[in-house]
């Protein structure tokens, strides 16, 4: 990790727009805040669209919207430099998030660069995938030995249920985008935030399968996420209770591999973060470069509690769920 990574956006005066008003950043690190060492940098995440999104979902944990410009887009060149560095580090997989990654005009080129090196996953709302983009994505995916996963957020099985969280018209547009992806050969991973009681899960999953079958997706891959009580979601439902935080006692005999920050870092326009969820928290910014960001991650925020309880919720699946060496 000798090469540094010039991805700091602070000096990009020509690119960075005026930030929207934001909640103040917190740095909740206390003397007894538990920290998690980076076991290996397996997952390299990119905040490729910054906080810019075409939707304004009421449960978004980083409050992304068309107006939230606090983190701006990464350029293809910036991503390419991080990719170059990742080869020497031995990164296993790449993830792209935002905001909405397809708001980034260079996204297809970025994916082409990435898939030359390894598998890539894009977290998208699928509302910005016209026919031509779907075909282009399929061409890029078919041309690589590695998998391109498209992880599509959908928060309901009907327009009524989904749009209550994601905004009017978003269900129809997401289903249209999904249909296009399925028709060109993708098997998108549908992610949905659990907004129902556990007992209703089988029924909800059944309804998802039915709704997706109706657009031709007959073997859907479904992933349920727990709500994160920060950002817009904290205002929609509730914030964390005072007791809901990770304490040093809780880390005794705990398998740290369950936490994303044991194996991942997030590249943003403003430096490298420990976690894709904690964008608004200064405690999660570990350095300006990947080389600087190998320091242990502090579990200073209450959202860390959700990850502690539910496991590395942001990964596609749990290839590294247990350490029994």
């Amino acid at each position, binding site marked *: 990790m000798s090469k540094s990574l010039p991805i700091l956006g602070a000096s990009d005066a020509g690119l960075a727009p005026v930030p929207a008003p934001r909640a103040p950043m917190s740095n909740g690190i206390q003397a007894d805040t538990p920290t998690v060492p980076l076991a*290996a940098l397996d997952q390299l995440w990119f905040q490729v669209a910054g906080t810019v999104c075409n939707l304004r979902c009421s449960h978004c944990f980083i409050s992304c919207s068309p107006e939230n410009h606090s983190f701006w887009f990464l350029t293809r060149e910036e991503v390419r430099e991080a990719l170059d560095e*990742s*080869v*020497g580090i*031995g*990164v*296993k*997989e790449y993830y792209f998030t935002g905001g909405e990654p397809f708001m980034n005009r260079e996204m297809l080129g970025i994916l082409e660069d990435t898939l030359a*090196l*390894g*598998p890539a996953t894009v977290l998208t709302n699928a509302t910005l995938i016209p026919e031509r983009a779907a075909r282009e994505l399929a061409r890029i*995916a078919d041309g690589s*030995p*590695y*998998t*391109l*996963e498209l992880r599509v957020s959908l928060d309901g099985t009907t327009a009524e249920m989904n749009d209550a969280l994601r905004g009017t018209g978003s269900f129809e547009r997401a289903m249209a985008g999904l249909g296009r992806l399925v028709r060109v*050969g*993708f*098997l998108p991973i549908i992610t949905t935030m659990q907004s129902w009681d556990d007992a209703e899960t089988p029924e909800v999953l059944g309804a998802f399968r039915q709704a997706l079958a109706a657009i031709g997706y007959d*073997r859907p*891959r479904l992933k349920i996420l727990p709500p994160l009580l920060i950002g817009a979601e904290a205002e929609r439902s509730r914030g964390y209770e005072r007791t809901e935080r990770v304490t040093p006692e809780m880390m005794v005999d705990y398998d740290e591999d369950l936490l994303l920050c044991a194996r991942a870092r997030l590249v943003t326009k403003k430096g490298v973060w420990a976690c894709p969820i904690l964008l608004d928290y200064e405690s999660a910014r570990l350095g300006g470069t990947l080389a600087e960001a190998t320091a242990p991650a502090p579990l200073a925020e209450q959202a860390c509690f959700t990850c502690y309880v539910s*496991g590395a919720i942001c990964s*596609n*699946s*749990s*290839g*590294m*769920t*247990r*350490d*029994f*060496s």
Partner: protein
Amino acid sequence: VNDVRGDELPTHGRIAVFGGVYSNHLALDAAIADASSRGVDAMYCLGDLGAFGPNPDKVFPLLRAHSIPVVRGNYDDSIARGLDDCQCGYTDPRDNHYARLSYQYTFTHTAPENRAWLADFPETIRFRLGELDVLACHGSPRQTNEFLWESGTPTHFLSKLASDAEVDLILGTHTGIHWQRRWEGGAYVNVGALGRPANDGRTEVWYALLEAQGRELSVDFVPIAYDHEALAEEMRSEELPEEFVETILTGWWTTCLEILPGKERARGKF
């Protein structure tokens, strides 16, 4: 853990390497016969003797009779230590349901002396093939239950695993689908599995035949046709899930699909 270096390591010219057996004693028997007929000078097994199939105790005498060294798989580790589950790493409730069924069956049908034998398997085995230094493991050199899929594993990542382990060649299984990758000065071979077909619509199962002359490596994946209908009958008489039997009879995986990356998943039927 076998961690001897240098000249003390056993050296081979041509070997057969078997992946997960999953209690498929008929396929193991056929694979041993096939490998023997090809004049190999050693056979290795990369672990997960139990799971999925019937009568787990039938596998052990075959391995002992042919003195086949075995690497400890996650299943072997669980059964040996009497853990609650197979450490397969599934998160989907349906996958876990089937994993639990087969784990409970395998645990209760593995004799205590065989469980004790599983506990003695090393996590990795090192040897030489021609002039190549080889590390045999179950999932990856760094973690027994790590999945290394062809479409999910960058070459630079494999090369780092090999250089961290100070070997030229890594052999693994765990995913159940055979594949290989070469790079300048190194190689990774997933030897596949004998326990169930490779999700390719064929009823054969696969093992890897490896040969090295000097540092020149050749790898052949060998399909093994065996009496899969007899295995299916035996599974039914043991009241194992019909979903498992279907896989043996059709060559398509019906369960535990969640962990497949998109490309591998798309090639299957379900």
